[in-house]
């Protein structure tokens, strides 16, 4: 390593993407200010008191600037070369952590070293990104070339997931699922993402709408059937050579639907499950016949999708009531607005919504937020830091913060696409994916649109490990990006 850096005759800042650095600096400074505001007490201590959250965070920030600078000094090729050893090392560290970490609120994820404690899971992010980038940059590697390639990619992704789950840090583990964006970019079928979106939609609809009944079945289930039928027609239109199959299927659905509706008006109620399963089965048989006639095997995908979707819908109820733990069920119900458990599971979200909502357009002013100053929002300096911004800086503050994040992520995508190497591109997409997941889940949870999943808001939430983890990700990316010209 030393021999490399001594050969580096140019300034380490040459070719650095300053746009990203500026956004990074803005986010970190805004984060420090927010933590100061969130932990400010009416009879408070000074910002320079290093025992306070804000003081400690200042120290972390100072160290992270040094860390970022140090990372820029490393030759970009080192990351590619040592990707697997780094990954292996960190995975071992994760494994060890499970056993040596003390129990902190049920989680075994912190390694305590004197006054400092670090969370290895935050550093597993960049290691996993490096390993994945390394895998994809292999000679003539193509994700779709062999099934075993998928297997390798998923192994790299799920190894940290399993280890982190074993530490009882569900939130941090979920972040790695964001890497499916990378797989998608690198050639995985869009159907996977589409079906993930559909699965979430089916889950939400069938869990949430159980009150009103249509045709003897809950309105949620009814909607799912309609959704399945619409998807079938769309897929048939997309995959068959002519639109005739799609048109006929659509006519069949609409025609039978009208008949059932008229019968219902006349007082003859057809049980919804029988009707929908019957008509969807009929459509499937019709599709098989069409497949045999036109030799278009892709039509079968429509059948598969319909069958899986209906089966999924029936299993949702079972999964929800029997597999999920009560507190998880409650969090989901609170997020979906089914339950209003303001005193327990919904307390955080309710208080957080109050904090943000009370900020109004321009906010109450720096250090003037009563919700945060009087500690109404638990975890307000960590996972719920966004509500401090909402309360004190108002809609201006929240939308500007979101704008900074969106700009950062879009910039990372731009950087990714300009990489001459697969390694650089995949690593950059990994960075973008992590940020997307953290951004969506953290802010979604604080404003009550997602279930409460405890993951931090990058650069804002209090904690050295999180800040360092994201700093490492970003500065390795900047280093690789700065070195891209030497490949030409």
């Amino acid at each position, binding site marked *: 390593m030393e021999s490399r850096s001594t050969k580096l005759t140019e300034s380490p800042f040459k070719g650095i993407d300053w746009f990203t650095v500026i956004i990074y600096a803005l986010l970190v400074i805004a984060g420090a200010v927010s933590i100061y505001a969130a932990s400010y007490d009416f009879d408070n201590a000074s910002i320079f008191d290093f025992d306070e959250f804000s003081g400690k965070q200042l120290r972390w920030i100072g160290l992270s600037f040094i860390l970022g600078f140090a990372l820029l000094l490393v030759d970009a090729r080192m990351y590619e070369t040592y990707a697997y050893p780094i990954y292996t090392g960190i995975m071992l560290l994760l494994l060890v952590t499970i056993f040596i970490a003390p129990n902190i609120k049920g989680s075994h994820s912190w390694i305590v070293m004197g006054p400092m404690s670090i969370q290895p899971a935050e550093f597993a992010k960049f290691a996993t990104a490096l390993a994945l980038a390394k895998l994809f940059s292999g000679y003539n590697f193509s994700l779709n070339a062999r099934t075993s390639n998928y297997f390798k990619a998923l192994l790299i992704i799920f190894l940290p997931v399993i280890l982190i789950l074993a530490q009882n840090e569900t939130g941090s583990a979920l972040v790695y699922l964001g890497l499916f964006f990378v797989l998608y970019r690198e050639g995985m079928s869009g159907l996977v993402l589409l079906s993930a979106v559909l699965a979430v939609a089916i889950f939400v609809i069938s869990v949430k709408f159980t009150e009103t009944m249509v045709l003897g079945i809950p309105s949620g289930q009814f909607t799912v059937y309609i959704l399945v039928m619409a998807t079938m027609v769309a897929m048939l239109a997309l995959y068959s050579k002519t639109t005739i199959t799609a048109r006929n299927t659509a006519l069949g659905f609409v025609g039978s639907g009208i008949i059932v509706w008229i019968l219902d008006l006349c007082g003859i109620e057809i049980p919804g499950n029988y009707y929908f399963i019957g008509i969807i089965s009929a459509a499937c048989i019709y599709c098989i016949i069409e497949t045999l006639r036109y030799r278009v095997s892709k039509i079968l995908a429509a059948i598969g999708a319909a069958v899986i979707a209906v089966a999924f819908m029936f299993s949702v109820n079972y999964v929800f009531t029997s597999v999920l733990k009560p507190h998880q069920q409650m969090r989901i119900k609170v997020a979906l607005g089914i339950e209003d458990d303001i005193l327990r599971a919904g307390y955080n979200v309710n208080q957080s919504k109050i*904090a943000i909502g009370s900020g109004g357009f321009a906010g109450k002013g720096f250090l003037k937020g009563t*919700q945060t100053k009087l500690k109404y929002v638990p975890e307000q300096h960590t996972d719920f830091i966004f509500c401090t911004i909402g309360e004190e800086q108002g809609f201006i503050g929240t939308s500007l913060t979101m704008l900074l994040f969106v700009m950062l992520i879009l910039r990372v995508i731009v950087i990714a696409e300009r990489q001459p190497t697969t390694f650089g591109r995949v690593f950059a997409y990994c960075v973008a994916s992590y940020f997307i997941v953290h951004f969506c889940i953290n802010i979604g949870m604080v404003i009550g649109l997602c279930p409460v999943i405890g993951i931090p808001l990058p650069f804002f939430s209090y904690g050295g490990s999180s800040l360092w983890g994201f700093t490492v990700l970003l500065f390795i990316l900047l280093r690789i990006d700065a070195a891209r010209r030497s490949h030409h």
Partner: protein
Amino acid sequence: MRKDYRLEKRKYVIAGFLLFIALIYLVRLFDLQINDSKYKAYADNNAFLNKTVYPSRGLIYDRNGELIVFNQPAYDVMMIPRDVQQFDTLDFCNTLNLTREQFDTRLQDMKKSPGYSTYTPQVLITHLSAQDYGRLQEKLYRYPGFFIQKRILRQYNHKTAANVLGNIREVSQNDIDNDPYYQRGDYCGDLGIEKSYDTYLRGQKGVEVLIRDAHGRIQGRYQDGTLDVAPVSGRNLKLSIDLGLQQYAESLMVNKIGAVVAIQPKTGEILAMVSSPTYDPTLLVGRQRGKEYRNLVNNPYKPLFDRALMAAYPPGSTFKPGQGLILLQEGIINTGTAYPCSHGFISGGLRVGCHGHGSPLPLKPALQTSCNAFFCWGFKAMVDKRSKYGTPAEAFEVWKHHLVSMGYGYKLGVDMPSESRGFLPNAPFYDRVYGEGRWSANTIISVSIGQGEICATPLQIANVCATIANRGWFITPHVVKEIQDTVMAPEYIDKHYPTIDERWYHEVAEGMRMAVTGGTCRLTNLPDIAVAGKTGTAQNPHGRDHSAFMGFAPYEDPEIAVCVYVENAGFGATFGVPIGSLVIEKYLKGEIAPERKYLEQRMLESNTIIYSGVKKH
């Protein structure tokens, strides 16, 4: 390096996903922060504790400035169940002189009360004594979640005039719904002037804006108290009641059921208003109020029922002066018109009895002797005078309107709650009972002597007496003479003139004077005070006759008009007159002449409650 341009387009899908989510969040934030203002209110509710500061309730004085009702601080032990930690229950109970059982029962009761919440202050024990308060205050730091709330209790210097004063109680849900001023735990007036003058007495609550953290701990005053509102003390009241007279009249009415009302005719001010049996107003103060209130409600003599203005009694012969006024005003009789009395009124098979006196006789002697026949004949002459009125019904309506103008049949508008209007029948009432056109004077002759359907409250009778004393006008009777810093309402200043000419009042007053000097009211013929009066002996379906008296004095320049009504006490002359005369003498002379002490003694000692037919439990 291989670059797949087909796959590169997927960056738009990923970026699009991000932008889509960001857009949803932006809309949500817009909705939370700009569209919906309720969150601001929620946050303020969280952070600011508006602590009520109770004003002191107005004091009550009698007409001579004697303090009757004042305030005394009391202390409630409050607890916020959520904040309570493990504590030494035994020590806590010892401090407050409670047994463990009492404490547990109290705790259970508290949990069952409708407003119970573990987050808000709950009343554990009300009205601590000063000693218990002192002991608890020292140890309070050991009991987190407990605090002491200062309240105000009423205290009485004299155990008198409970019916006039009323009392205070904690507001009910109903009160809160009807008056936005009230909050749970506030006190409001109940009965008497505490109720009718509640808005003056209660003052204006103040508020302290405190900052409260998520654990309910008070962090200090918001903006150093600039938003605080200081409480405004309630206004003091000066009653028109003469405390000494009130006490004296109450003592005379001991062991009797009935009422005494004394009015200063010139002002309409009520000097004394006794309802008997009465009760001790101090019973309805503090922790035992609920129990004592129930006892009073269940008491067979109904002490909470203010007979002075709620009981509608047949006025009996006290009705006759009013009768005389109507007959004179309508020209049915003149001062010389005499009617015969043959030990009663006999007409068409109807007979109303009377007692021995000269016959025939004109109005003044008729009042003097309380002749039934005279007023029956007069009434008959009026109601059956078709030449003037057409039908008996129309004649009766004219008769009734005169009575209404005197204050019968409707609420007078005294400044007390729950006044009764008495009862005055009208022509349609008799049409319903007897059929239209099927009744005449003879059918309803008993109303002419204050019997039958006619009912009046002692207050109404006293008011008629005051009107005669004024020779033709009255001011609506009232018990509050002055409200601190407030101008008296015009309804208690304006004179009311009944539809009777002043000259006829002089005739009737003279008749009443004759009743004292040589008629039914001779017992009240004081040597140095000219009294005018009228007895009443009211038959009633509930046993012995009621004994009534109305009178005023001095005759030329009246200072007091009195109505006494004693249930089941027999002739007006036996109880009504002596009590009335003693009240007049006491008020005008300050003491009872030695030669009349025997009368006072007899009244103090006599017991007519035994004739009431009410069985004591």
